[in-house]
């Protein structure tokens, strides 16, 4: 038994070095070399300053911006505290939040009378979802266009150009990246703050 114990200690150390030090450091080295942008977080910069990551959602409340989904990460889009709401389907707190969220969505987009797109008032799993559905973006186009004093059709064309379809026409869901879209809008049609 003593012999097995000795092997247990040594093999743990051995594989800690191989799989715990060499493997991740090698992957880090190679990734930094061939995928430096992705490996460092797909960071977005404006005039050299970091404004976020294209993969990490952020809060937008102003009418000039497309709004993301509700977030349960920290106090909202906390990039160091990812989380869903974890509210169960029969929890009164969920019903309450949904009805408030629905009312807010309607008041922000008063001209829209149809059903609310499924992603618009539900909290995402990570709390950092950077994307919304194209249907959700379409509803918000009128508001954003009027706030930025631009033609809604021009704006919708920009949204459509930035929307991503299913990968290979098959995988995932169609979506629009809110962070990238809003950044693009600031570039094309700046507004007075």
């Amino acid at each position, binding site marked *: *038994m003593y012999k097995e114990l000795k092997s247990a200690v040594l093999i743990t150390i051995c594989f800690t070095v191989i799989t*715990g030090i060499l493997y991740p450091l090698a992957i880090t080295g190679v990734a930094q070399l061939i995928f430096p942008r992705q490996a460092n977080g797909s960071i977005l910069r404006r005039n050299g300053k970091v404004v976020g990551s294209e993969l990490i959602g952020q809060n937008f409340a102003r009418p000039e911006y497309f709004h993301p989904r509700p977030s349960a990460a920290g106090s909202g889009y906390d990039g160091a505290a990812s989380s869903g709401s974890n509210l*169960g389907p029969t929890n009164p707190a969920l019903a309450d939040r949904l009805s408030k969220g629905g009312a807010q969505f309607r008041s922000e987009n008063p001209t829209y009378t149809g059903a609310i797109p499924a992603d618009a008032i539900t909290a995402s799993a*990570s709390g950092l979802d950077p994307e919304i559905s194209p249907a959700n973006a379409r509803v918000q186009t009128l508001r954003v266009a009027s706030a930025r004093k631009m033609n809604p059709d021009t704006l919708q064309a920009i949204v459509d150009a930035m929307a991503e379809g299913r990968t290979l026409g098959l995988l995932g869901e169609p979506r629009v990246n809110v962070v990238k879209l809003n950044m693009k809008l600031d570039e094309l049609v700046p507004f007075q703050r």
Partner: protein
Amino acid sequence: MTPNGWLQIALFFVLIIACAKPLGKFIAEVMEGRRTFLTGLLGPVERLVYRLCGVTLDPEGKPEEQHWTRYAGALLAFSAFSALLLYAFQRLQGWLPFNPQGLNQNNVSPDLAFNTSVSFTTNTNWQSYVPETTLSYFVQMAGMTVHNFLSAAAGLGIAMALVRGFARQSVQTIGNFWADLTRATLYILLPISVVAALFFCSQGVIQNLNGYETATTLEGPRQTIAQGPVASQEAIKMLGTNGGGFFNANSAHPYENPTPLSNLAQMFLIFLIPGALTYTFGIMVRDTKQGWALFGAMSVLWFAGVLTAYNFEQAGTPVLSKAGVELSPTGEQSGGNMEGKETRFGIANTALFATVTTDASCGAVNGMHDSFTPLGGLVPLFNIQLGEVVFGGVGAGLYGMLMFAILAVFIAGLMVGRTPEYLGKKIEKKEVKMAMIAMLVLAAAILFFTAAGSVAEFAKNGYWNPQGPATANLNNPGAHGFAEILYAYTSGTGNNGSAFAGISANTPWYNLTIGLAMLIGRFLMVLPLLAIASSLAAKRQVPASAGTFPTHGPLFVGLLVGVVVIVGALTYFPALSLGPLVEHLML
């Protein structure tokens, strides 16, 4: 449900079928110590590991065969020491390198470190902490990543030991634990992980050692964005059916799983080895039809799960429709219950992921199971309770399913009044007894701890939990709250690691009890199975006769599925009816 959704589900399954044979053959060659295309490169490393670690070699230079008690002893000694080392890493992280956020022992209490260290050693990866504010990069790499490899390799070894029991005759030995551990890690897990990690990077998964990024967002406020060596851990987290996230949101976090393509790859990696192992099993018992029969039974159960989860998640709930939410899918939005789901995955991919991760003992999540509809959420819960034998964990799925196969032939034997046989081995008192022990221990642990968690009360200023009932740690009231407790202990005992994550489990009470559940679920299952392996290996093979019940046809597949479902349903129906079932009626 949409045709596109079903097409994605079908594509996933075709990939699993396509890889079963080639990878299964490769695994058989590796685990039997034969030469493969990687031997030239990795053979010297393998021999170096044996030499450094004092593994006893036989006169031919191969690791010495072990009796089951020595095999089990090696497994236990290894698990105990590696768990201890992980505990030490967590508590000492303040003095260790790769720690840009300056996290220290105050971030990891002793009870949390115990829970986490047991969790990763048993291939559970239950996490009662928020990783991005708890663990340094060093602990994530040299602790978590290492255990992701080794706990999977150990599981694979145990499965091989059991299969050798069926394949051999009149011998006392079932393989060498150190060789199984080393070969599985070096030849199977490591090469696939390297490829997968780099693929994940290409999709946007991060891999760096930088401190957390600070951004000034477009609207002005600052945002801190957690970083780290994620891709290298992500690959083995899925491939080893571990499931412990680098971040709190696990595979829902855009840095862990950024695109539909990375999502497909993650689900594929979960089932890759478990699917292939059925073929490995077929090769080793010299009848690949036996392996495909297990594959068939697993496929039936997998499909039933996906169908149920997809259906109910797409249907949504009355609360959603009352708030005015669109529940039908349209071309521009997914419809259904999107609470706790990511836009890029939608309903189909989240339902599929939830089913796959709990069919296997993975436990990674790309959506929050706690916010699923009652019956959609029943699927992952019940999958774990079935013993995670639907493809299952790396190794764990195969040995679990073989345990059910033993019970199935025993039941068939009772019905026709013959001594049951499986793969030419007579299944007798000892095997059935051991299989029953393994099964009953799991059920007892789940139900006992759930009951205790539902009624426990704590005094003021006590150590174990804040004052009041343990149920105060729940995030949801009523039946759903009960389901959170049931899910926690089911996940722990089943070594899954996913959660109805609303439960605040980071208290000494939950850390200790879930920790115990994980230990029971791993080792009190594995030890009886190794005993079965040894008892089978000692037996002679009986040639099949006209009276032998064939175990490679649809009749056996049906019987096996029946046994798995009936045992699960009979054991857990009362508990489930207090949780998800009654909640569904309350909608």
